């Protein structure tokens, strides 16, 4: 099916039915999922799906309807529903669609080869990762290995002349194992995701990391409640980045529901903190040529050497704020309106090696796992469950579990005194290892 032609046609139909402006967002894709346990295939899933979302404007009122039935009568009914539903909403001068027609190209988003590799190769990858992870005698059970892939196409057409599309693919595999010792159980998992099949890590590497994560955490020791340095491993980057993301959402900023709302162009963090949002990185897992409503993505500095430089906006919120879209309209699929979200979002690399950061820490906690909600984007309070390693005299001394860490965003941002050089940009939300001088740790 020619989705571009269909989308363009549907926009025209919406106008004919009485919409003042209209947008068609179409997604189509297929995916494959294989799950392995104890050397046998446990599940095989295959599917193809597609859907269309209509965003309709009538006299400044906005409504949306979606359908995954492409029959002409079903689509006709869906757009009528949206037009009808627009009666229920409030008119707003900011309710507009973008008209940016630049066609930006971001390299390396779609791998035509992924689908061509034999199913057996993919099954064997997951099986091998499991087999190798189980080789270590400390690993007693497999919680399963998996391989997944998906590919799809997005088309956006609107009544202001935007007509854009792109294709993307992703593949991933991983394994999860359990180490047991007496009554103790410790689990470890590792996965690798890439745009291109050939770029995936080797099963050896993934397996070794998963096994290490499990057995390294055996025989944890208790530590006392205290304040100490806290080192954030790249695996727990989300504990820092998640709260920042909530707080730089342009709509939350306008509403005052963000602890960063009034801090634009102010110093909010240590000079070592530079945060980047990049939708254009070739092969990036969160890259795309345009955002959820067709605006070209950008690479932007959100925090530069500790100074807050900007927020994230879609078209409507950007107009309301008087700054325009930043190409951050985020779409969770064809079933909903564009929200606001990041692309590849990361803490820029520093110059210190992770080993050096550990060596420079007299007493501290190396965080490998943080649970909970991270930084609260409304008031900046931070609290989480924690596990990792205790550091004594510049060396990893023993694993620790069942701890808590807490502080405020201010404590964390300003307390960053070392940033690692180990940034892995193959992850969509990522940070190198970094150290916060002092945080409250809850233990015995």
């Amino acid at each position, binding site marked *: 099916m020619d989705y571009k032609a269909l989308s363009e046609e549907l926009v025209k139909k919406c106008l004919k039915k009485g919409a003042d402006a209209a947008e068609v967002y179409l997604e189509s894709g297929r995916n494959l999922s294989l799950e392995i346990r104890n050397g046998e295939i446990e599940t095989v899933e295959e599917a193809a799906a597609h859907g269309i979302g209509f965003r309709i404007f009538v006299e400044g009122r906005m409504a949306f309807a979606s359908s995954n039935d492409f029959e002409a009568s079903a689509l006709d*009914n869906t757009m009528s529903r949206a037009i009808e539903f627009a009666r229920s909403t409030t008119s707003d001068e900011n309710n507009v669609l973008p008209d940016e027609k630049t066609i930006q190209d971001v390299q390396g988003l779609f791998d035509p080869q992924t689908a061509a590799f034999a199913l057996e190769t993919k099954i064997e990858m997951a099986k091998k990762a499991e087999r190798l992870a189980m080789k270590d005698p400390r690993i007693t059970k497999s919680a399963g290995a998996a391989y997944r892939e998906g590919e799809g196409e997005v088309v956006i057409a609107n009544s202001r002349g935007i007509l854009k599309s792109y294709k993307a693919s992703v593949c*991933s595999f991983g394994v999860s194992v359990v180490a047991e010792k007496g009554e103790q159980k410790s689990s470890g998992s590792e996965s690798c995701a890439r745009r291109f099949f050939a770029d995936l890590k080797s099963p050896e590497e993934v397996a070794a990391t998963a096994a290490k994560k499990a057995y390294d955490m055996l025989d944890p020791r208790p530590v006392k409640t205290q304040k100490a340095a806290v080192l954030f491993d790249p695996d727990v980057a989300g504990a820092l980045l998640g709260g920042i993301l909530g707080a730089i959402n342009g709509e939350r900023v306008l509403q005052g529901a963000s602890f960063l709302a009034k801090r634009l162009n102010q110093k909010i963090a240590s000079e070592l903190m530079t945060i980047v949002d990049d939708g254009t990185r070739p092969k990036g897992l969160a890259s795309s040529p345009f955002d959820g409503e067709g605006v070209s993505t950008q690479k932007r500095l959100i925090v530069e050497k500790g100074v807050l430089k900007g927020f994230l906006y879609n078209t409507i919120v950007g107009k309301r704020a008087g700054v325009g879209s930043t190409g951050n309209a985020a779409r969770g699929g064809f079933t909903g309106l564009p929200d606001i979200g990041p692309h590849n979002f990361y803490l820029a690399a520093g110059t210190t090696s992770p080993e050096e950061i550990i060596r420079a820490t007299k007493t501290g906690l190396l965080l490998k796992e943080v649970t909970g909600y991270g930084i609260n984007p409304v008031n900046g309070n931070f*609290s989480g469950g924690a596990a990792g390693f205790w550091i004594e005299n510049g060396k990893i001394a023993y694993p620790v579990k069942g701890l808590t860490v807490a502080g405020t965003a201010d404590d964390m941002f300003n307390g960053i005194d070392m940033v690692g050089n180990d940034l892995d940009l193959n992850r969509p939300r990522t940070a190198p290892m970094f150290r916060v001088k002092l945080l409250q740790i809850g233990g015995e």
Partner: protein
Amino acid sequence: MRFPKTFVEDIPRRKFLELGLKGGLALTATPQLLTQLLAGQGTSASPVKVGADSSLLNRTISKALEKGGDFAEVYIEKRISRTILMEESKFKSAVFGISQGAGVRVIAGEKTGYAYTDEIADDKLLRAAEVASTIARGSRASKPVDIRPARRKSFITIKLPLGEVAEAKRLDIIRRAHQAALDYDARIKMASINYYEEVRGRTIANSEGVLLSDELPLLFFVVQTLSVGNNTQHLGRERLSRHSGFEMFEEVTPEQVARACARESIAMLEAKDAPAGKLDVVMQNGWGGVLVHEAVGHPLEADNIAKKIGVFTGKLGQKVANPVFTMVDDGGHPQLPGTESFRNIPIPRMTNTFIDNGKERPEDILASTKSGLYVQSLSGGSVNPITGVFNFTCREAYLIENGKKTSPVKGATLIGNCLDIISNIDAVGNDLDFGPGICGKGQSAEVSAGQPTVRIRGINVGGTRAAR
């Protein structure tokens, strides 16, 4: 195991199950059928006319078992949903969704094959059956299938079907909640009201000859209020959700929900730093039941037990908790979100999970706790079902000093191990209540969690100052 999410991964199965392309035997999604569904007609007699299509279902099941296998099933769903958002005194958006789809599942020994399609047509269903059957490599000749309509007891009663509610009534409910929230206190600077409703028609047919159809309504009403003052701000949240008709808003008014939310927002403006370290915790009745949902419920789900890796593996019949602790999962609780007339998603998961009533009065539990933390409501939590380590985050909590609830404290994360926690619950109240939630276990599902007031001795609290 977590894998990065990207849009291409979003479209397939997760989305499918989450947003419900599971399509109704609305198979024959004719306009008439659609109209019926939208009109909410025939809540007991499903609008899904199966008779005409049972031959296709039979053929699909036969096809699914062509290469062998022990069991095959076709699941078809159609979902119609509405979301209306009022925020900053405006009806900001209105979202309407129609989705449908069919999944075919084949089980052969311990293997499962699954495929789905969102186009409910002969060739697509048969193709899905063929794909799902690839895991079966037996030689068993497939038997012809002859499905017959069966019935299951329904726990859902509907007085005001959602499909018959005038749009103005929905808007009125939302407006009333918005106004009540702003009227509560001048420090409430913003209210956000999210109204969601859906009607889901489902059909299941399997190789054992069973054919089931039903229609399930769901209402999910969420109020959030932003309070500003005392040099801080707090976003409160209150939810109301049932499998119910519009009468839900007569039983609990939108004003009640809004005021409960605003109350939390105002109370938490005074929050002081929470203590850090091991404390005794008293948890108020209601949604605090998410504690047992996470800490005990998920580890009890049979998938990890079957793999012999779950924390409760081998513990059936053993004493695992303090004798005052009894926990129940009840999929037949009238109207609660986790209630279904039959189970739809083929993974082991909870429905309405709660700690059963004990004998103590809640005020006595508090009075007999010298110092600690009183948790009035929780945001949510998660658990590692293998190790049993769980966490949950407080929305509203207070210090306990000399048996009394005193200052509010900032939202802290609590962490512990499930086996320790259920041994350390030493007091259970007689005031069981429930709260609604969305449980994410790869696929999202509406559930409810409940508990009476309980006390847990010694749980690690993630505060910002050392406890005394």
